[in-house]
């Protein structure tokens, strides 16, 4: 299960809406081993694409260093789908290297309704999990 603060949940949705129709992406860092997503970090989508995302490599290095220095890890890795459902694509699955992370998908395909779902992706096996907004 993913427990996430309402403020962080809303920050992810706001980012996804702002970058629509391109995919938005980022992380929520938290203390290593805590499973608490606390520090929202919107990342640049270096691809600037409606169908693909990739963290900018230099920004990723900087953010990963910060996490290392503060004994944090990426608790949530999020991105948006802008025309399809909030479910991991084959590409998402094959590129999911963080077995400890909650992979959050937000879909902005319907401007009236947000889809916000969370998954574990381990060895290419996708397991959806409940999301509790607190």
């Amino acid at each position, binding site marked *: 299960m993913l427990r996430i603060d309402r403020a962080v949940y809303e920050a992810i949705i706001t980012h996804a809406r702002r970058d629509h129709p391109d*995919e938005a*992406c980022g*992380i929520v860092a938290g203390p290593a081993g805590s499973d608490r997503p606390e520090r929202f970090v919107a*990342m640049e989508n270096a*691809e600037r*694409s409606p*169908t*693909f*995302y*990739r*963290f900018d*490599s*230099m920004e*990723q*290095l900087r953010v*990963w260093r910060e996490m290392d220095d503060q004994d944090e890890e990426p608790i949530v*890795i999020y*991105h948006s*789908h*802008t*025309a*399809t459902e909030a479910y*991991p*694509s*084959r*590409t*998402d699955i*094959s*590129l*999911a*290297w*963080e*077995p*400890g992370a909650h992979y959050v998908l937000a879909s902005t395909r319907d401007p009236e309704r947000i889809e916000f779902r969370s998954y574990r992706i381990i060895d*290419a096996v996708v397991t959806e999990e409940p999301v509790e907004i607190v």
Partner: protein
Amino acid sequence: MAVQVRVPTILRSYTGGSKVVEGVGDTLAALFIDIDSRFPGLRGRLIADAGELHRFVNIYVNDEDVRFLGGLDAKIADGDNVTILPAVAGGCAVMPATSGV
């Protein structure tokens, strides 16, 4: 003196859990061959079948992305720091050549 290589969590199964390993070599290619002699299999996760750096692995020499330093031909020297980070990428489209590292 040698080159320090920071290994991401997902690849530490090859390094006995170590976060940092040391190696030697004049180029990134030579460094990876040296490291692979002690940590077999690691190199295969960084280099694709065609002998190029895997598209979805980021490698940095002293905080520079090696894609801008000549890739595997990037020159390295004693005391340099090499960092490996799996790219964070995906999306709704099916991209070619996205098999896992």
